[in-house]
């Protein structure tokens, strides 16, 4: 019965979504939501993706996903003893989400009149990457609601082997999905926004990072919690991850933070989501503490894998708190001191970078755990040597970023060598996903540091035919043309970059959208493994010259590659661990 109802729920929601999508494809602008987010000039693909381009549709999609995962759970795990509680939890969440949808953000409201045309999809969102970014993000959020329901089930029925298996599966899937969503958003920011960066510590980005950090700690804490070690900690993280994802929806949708991702804000939505957050927070944490007697955990012994895992979790949670405070502090100042404040990237990078180094040091320590354990006196000596080397380097007044780069590069080489040695001596690598995952995190850190340290930007004024020499390469503005498309007109500027006889062409555009007259810039980028040339076309001056922002960004391609490797490791780890 329960399983049938879950299928029915999913089918009905699917029909509702299909109905709304059909209105988009048919240009039925009498639907307010369609009118506000589409137009008849829009290519069909974007008419479809406009479905989730604004609050109402994206929330509906999120509910569809939640209902879908409920149905999948019932289909695959109907026999499990945790399913009733898990179903009840998800149904509870679904119920409140649907109430929220119907009373504050109904996408099916209509006008009395039929407008001729819609007000168009936000041009910034007319990009293939951003068309798929939101669904992936919601899927990530929603899957964490499933892990939450499993954790709650475990609190009532006890954590057995089967439950752990499913928890790991769902935690792996959620983690992978959320990471993919963040990566897609990052790539979009770099290629579409034209600010030359991939991460801005913008509140909305941070809000997504919060459940991701909690989820990372959660997934790691799952590894050993089968032995009841740190079980309650794992449960706490599972609950927090879900709560942080609701908190994220609240902050983004209520518009209490200023951000580039401004959604239309409506106080009633904020009130509803905040109440929802409060309800789930008090209920789940109350349950957690009332049952915590059952979850007695032992503290792991010093210098063991479990111990390192605890350290890893502590570091991740500290990073989480830093991001949390930095993101939400502006709300506090606004409420209590009536001051608008925004916290810049410096706060985050200067506090988080050392912690990332600590994480990398933990990866390294894990490699030599056997050795450290067998010979404790040597351990002491080694740590003293390492500490004094670092102290020396610190005193030697080397640039801290260079120091960091050296450290990360060393870590990368050591990890890689260890993996290779293991592979050639045993013809196999144990827990490959872990090695690959940790390697890609180190590589990612290296690329980010590289990017931070060496990237350069200038603003120049060029006429067609002009050249400029910057950082060892020559940029030339070849030509400027005006082109027309179905839904926008654009000024297309062709550039060439000449460096040591290697010529590359870049095309940057400035688009004027026909509806609403919004102007967007399309960046011209030429990438290689080490560095990117990045050109953004600015305004035209009276004398026919154009303002141009020209940057050379290092390590961008490496950032993408290491993130993709990380994703691959997550996916492989999830599948392998589940034994398929």
């Amino acid at each position: 019965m329960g399983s049938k109802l879950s299928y029915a729920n999913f089918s009905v929601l699917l029909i509702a979504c299909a109905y709304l999508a059909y209105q988009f494809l048919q240009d039925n602008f009498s639907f307010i939501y369609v009118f506000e987010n589409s137009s008849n000039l829009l290519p069909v693909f974007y008419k479809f993706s406009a479905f989730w381009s604004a609050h109402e549709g994206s929330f509906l999609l999120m509910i569809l996903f939640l209902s879908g995962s409920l149905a999948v759970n019932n289909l695959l795990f109907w026999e499990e003893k945790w399913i009733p509680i898990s179903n009840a939890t998800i149904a509870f969440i679904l119920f409140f989400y649907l109430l929220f949808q119907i009373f504050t953000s109904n996408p099916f409201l209509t006008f009395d009149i039929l407008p001729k045309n819609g007000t168009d999809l936000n041009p910034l969102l007319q990009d293939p990457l951003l068309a798929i970014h939101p669904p992936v993000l919601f899927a990530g959020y929603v899957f964490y609601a499933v892990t939450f329901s499993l954790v709650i089930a475990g609190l009532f029925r006890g954590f057995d082997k089967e439950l752990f298996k499913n928890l790991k599966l769902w935690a792996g899937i959620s983690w992978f999905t959320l990471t993919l969503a963040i990566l897609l958003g990052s790539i979009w920011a770099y290629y579409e926004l034209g600010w030359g960066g991939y991460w801005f510590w913008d509140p909305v980005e941070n809000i997504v990072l919060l459940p991701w950090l909690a989820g990372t700690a959660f997934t790691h804490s799952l590894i050993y919690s089968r032995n009841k070690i740190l079980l309650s900690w794992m449960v706490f993280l599972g609950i927090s991850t879900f709560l942080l994802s609701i908190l994220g929806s609240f902050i983004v949708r209520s518009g209490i933070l200023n951000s580039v991702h401004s959604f239309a804000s409506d106080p009633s939505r904020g009130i509803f989501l905040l109440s929802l957050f409060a309800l789930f927070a008090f209920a789940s944490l109350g349950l957690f503490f009332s049952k915590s007697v059952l979850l007695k955990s032992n503290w792991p012994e010093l210098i063991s894998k479990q111990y390192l895992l605890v350290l890893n979790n502590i570091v991740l949670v500290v990073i989480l708190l830093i991001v949390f405070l930095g993101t939400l502090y502006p709300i506090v100042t606004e409420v209590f001191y009536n001051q608008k404040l925004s916290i810049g990237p410096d706060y985050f990078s200067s506090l988080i970078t050392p912690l990332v180094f600590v994480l990398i040091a933990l990866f390294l320590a894990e490699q030599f755990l056997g050795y450290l354990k067998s010979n404790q006196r040597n351990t002491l000596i080694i740590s003293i040597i390492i500490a004094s080397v670092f102290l020396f380097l610190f005193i030697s007044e080397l640039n801290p970023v260079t120091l960091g780069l050296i450290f990360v590069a060393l870590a990368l080489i050591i990890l890689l060598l260890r993996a290779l040695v293991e592979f050639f001596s045993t013809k196999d690598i144990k827990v490959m996903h872990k090695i690959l995952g940790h390697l890609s995190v180190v590589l990612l850190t290296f690329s980010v540091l590289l990017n931070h340290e060496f990237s350069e930007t200038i603003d120049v004024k060029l006429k067609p035919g002009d050249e400029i020499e910057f950082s060892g390469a020559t940029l030339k503005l070849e030509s400027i043309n005006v082109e027309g498309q179905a839904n926008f007109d654009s000024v297309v500027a062709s550039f060439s970059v000449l460096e040591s006889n290697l010529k590359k062409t870049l095309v940057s555009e400035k688009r004027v959208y026909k509806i609403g007259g919004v102007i967007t810039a399309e960046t011209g980028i030429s990438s290689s493994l080490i560095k990117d040339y990045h050109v953004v076309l600015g305004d035209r001056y009276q004398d026919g010259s154009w303002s141009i922002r020209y940057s050379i960004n290092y390590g961008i391609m490496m950032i993408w590659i290491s993130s993709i490797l990380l994703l691959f490791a997550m996916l492989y780890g999830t599948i392998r661990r589940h034994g398929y």
Partner: protein
Amino acid sequence: MATRIFLVLIMAILVLMIATFSLSLVEKEEIALIENQEGKSLNIVDDLYDIEGNQIPLESLLEGKVLLNVWASWCITCLVEHPFLKSITQSKDVKLIGINYKDQSFNAEKYLLENGDPYIFSIYDLSGEFSLKLGVTGAPETFLLIDGVIVSHRIGEVNMEIWNEKFAQYF
């Protein structure tokens, strides 16, 4: 014992957080007021053109009572207030001048052809620059100018009720 301390701590943090967020929601409505432009005078630097491309004599804006209405063919609220604007120009002696805001001229012309044109003429403001200087935040907005000074400014739709409240006293 440790559990209980943790419980109290977590719950206290939660309560504080939720309280702060609730306050921020309340406060929000007071801060979110958009600045009203009443009392400022019109200062035009650039040449102005209408939708057909004819230059607009500046005196037409600066002399006497002028009702300036910001509109666009893509603006649904403009379409809603359009019949009211027509009726007000027919029933009262109102000099109504449009500002066609961030719109394509052919769309604007089509809009006026289909819905009727109550404007004496419309200033063509594709870039939105003129409107920006005027203090426009979006469409529709309506300004009443008396000898180049903004005496009344409505952000949003104008209907009979708003008219009586903000504009009727001057006519």
